[in-house]
């Protein structure tokens, strides 16, 4: 993935998530969804550094990770619309999608729930010696779950090829990290398990990409897991209908100045890779992709409830 592709993908994820928020307000999709507006550099920077054989698990805020990994936006949108053509045929919704064929093992909507799952995918890779690295995404909130500590200990002990990528977006729902983390530097927790812990600027596409590439290589070389903290900011609310009473509009305005897409765009323009016109064309293409996805989803059939019981067991 070159930088222009990365820029296009980040734009598409942003527009996808903005569309989701709008579709909820319009009552065209139901349930809930957590958007990753402001965190696109983490998803795309990571995806840009991985091989086709690698794997990923995600969080409740996972559309961006899935799209960055190569999901079909039409089928992600169809899942949000609850349609038969969605990744989970309408059974999963926003938080429960998976596509092992592209190395994407999803999430389950429980904060921290996929952390041991990722280590299990890594154990399989180690047992079969496939050279696969598994990236395990989770948030600052999940780093307070007991299973995070259990899994880091176990993965370090067994030298599993898993890269733990914590997206520290400043808030566990409404709780700022200052009120949720005794030590706000999550990367420090790696030292308790004798593994490498590094913090990078999660709004800098290049810092994420290079950090993931470096530490994924260490995992692949059999050196065991690494904890990579990507410091970012959730520009959107926690989920649909979040009034964001726990932070000021001034704080948000300042955070928008640090928008990862704006930063990559500026960088690419300064180094001459991207012109204003080219950027506009790429954004229009990304919007068309999202619009196509919505059209596809809305015109897809509803799932058939008569067949549900047949799906209970494999």
């Amino acid at each position, binding site marked *: 993935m070159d930088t222009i592709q990365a820029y296009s993908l980040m734009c598409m994820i942003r527009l996808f998530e903005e569309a989701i928020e709008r579709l909820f307000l319009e009552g065209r999709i139901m349930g809930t969804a957590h958007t990753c507006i402001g965190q696109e550099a983490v998803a795309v920077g990571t995806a840009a550094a991985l091989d086709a054989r690698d794997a990923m698990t995600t969080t409740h805020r996972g559309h961006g990770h899935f799209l960055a990994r190569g999901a079909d936006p039409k089928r992600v949108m169809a899942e949000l619309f609850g349609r038969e053509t969605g990744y989970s045929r309408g059974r999963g919704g926003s938080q429960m999608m998976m596509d*092992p064929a592209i190395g994407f093992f999803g999430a389950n909507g*429980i904060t921290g*729930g996929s952390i041991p*799952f990722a280590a299990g995918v890594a154990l399989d890779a180690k047992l079969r010696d496939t050279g696969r690295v598994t990236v395990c995404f989770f948030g600052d909130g999940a780093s307070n779950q007991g299973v995070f500590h*259990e899994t880091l200990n*176990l993965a370090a002990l067994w030298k599993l090829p898993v890269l733990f990528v914590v997206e520290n977006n400043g808030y566990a729902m409404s709780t700022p990290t200052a009120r949720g983390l005794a030590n706000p530097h999550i990367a420090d927790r790696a030292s308790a398990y004798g593994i490498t812990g590094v913090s990078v600027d999660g709004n800098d596409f290049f810092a994420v990409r290079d950090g993931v590439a470096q530490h994924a290589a260490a995992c692949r070389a059999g050196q065991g897991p690494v904890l990579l903290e990507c410091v970012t900011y959730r520009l959107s609310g926690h989920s649909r209908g979040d009034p964001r009473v726990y932070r000021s509009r001034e704080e948000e305005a300042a955070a928008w100045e640090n928008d990862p897409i704006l930063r990559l765009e500026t960088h690419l323009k300064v180094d001459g890779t991207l012109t204003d016109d080219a950027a506009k064309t790429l954004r229009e293409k990304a919007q068309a992709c999202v619009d196509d996805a919505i059209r596809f989803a809305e015109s897809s059939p509803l799932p058939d409830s008569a067949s549900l019981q047949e799906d209970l*067991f*494999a």
Partner: protein
Amino acid sequence: MRSVTFTQLIRETLAAELRRDPSVFLMGEDIGVYGGSFGVTRGLIDEFGPERIRDTPISEQALTGVAIGAAVAGQRPVIEIMFMDFITLAVDQLVNMAAKLHPIYGRPCPLVIRTPPGGGRGYGATHSQSLERLFAGVPGIKIAAPSNATDASALLQTAIRDNNSVLFLEHKLLYPQRFDVEDDLPTPLPFGFARVAREGEDLTIVAWSHQAFVAERAAAQLATEGIDAEVIDLRTLCPLDIDTLAESARRTGRVMILEEGPKTGGFAAEIAAQIMEHAHEYLEKPVRRIAGADFPIPSAKNLEAACLPAYDNILALAREWMG
């Protein structure tokens, strides 16, 4: 024929499955050199090594989640939860991930969770519980609860080859029991078929796991008194063989259900309700439950006995019905 303990036949079955399929591996606390808290995996590490007889830290949630991830990625993990009480630490992974994999994501999750429930050993309130009820109400997890060595072997083979998560109960009082078994391991037994352990016409005793073992003994005693009890050993709770239960209920008209766990909120209540739905017009007597007390299992021998279902109560109810 030969005589083996329940433990020995489980161990032989695990070894056979490990030899048959390289994607099968065992994982749990102290299952390697130590051989497991109840000795079930003793010696397996010598043949299969520490990669496939994998000791874990004391981290039930992580080890269960790791097993689920490995299963979805293509392995067939068989994990051991040392005492069923400890499964509470892994409930999130089982309920929110394992149980959802096929119905929601459409993905197989070939995982077996072996664990010993049950009291009778004076281990106290957190090492004696029968918690299958917690999972019986979670669609997406199969539950096997054998009462003898041959069934345990046959069902464990099925569980390991199944593409879903199977909770496999090995009651701790069964481990040292000796059973007459064939020289070769039995063939795998499909889930959802109860065993009619004893045919009878007067009344039906429904049970699973160790209580089915108890029920057979009670029926033998009742036979000497002229009472002809049918014993149905469920073998699997999910799927539940309601057809066999309903047929027996229609024929005898009297059904008692044994359950080791507390009476309130137990699986016996579910069975009773299903029998009512399928056979109430044939019942001579209301369905009755003989179950544990609604109290945590105490440690002192006499107190523990007071909280577990009493053998004498089975006999007394049968005599009351048929007297």
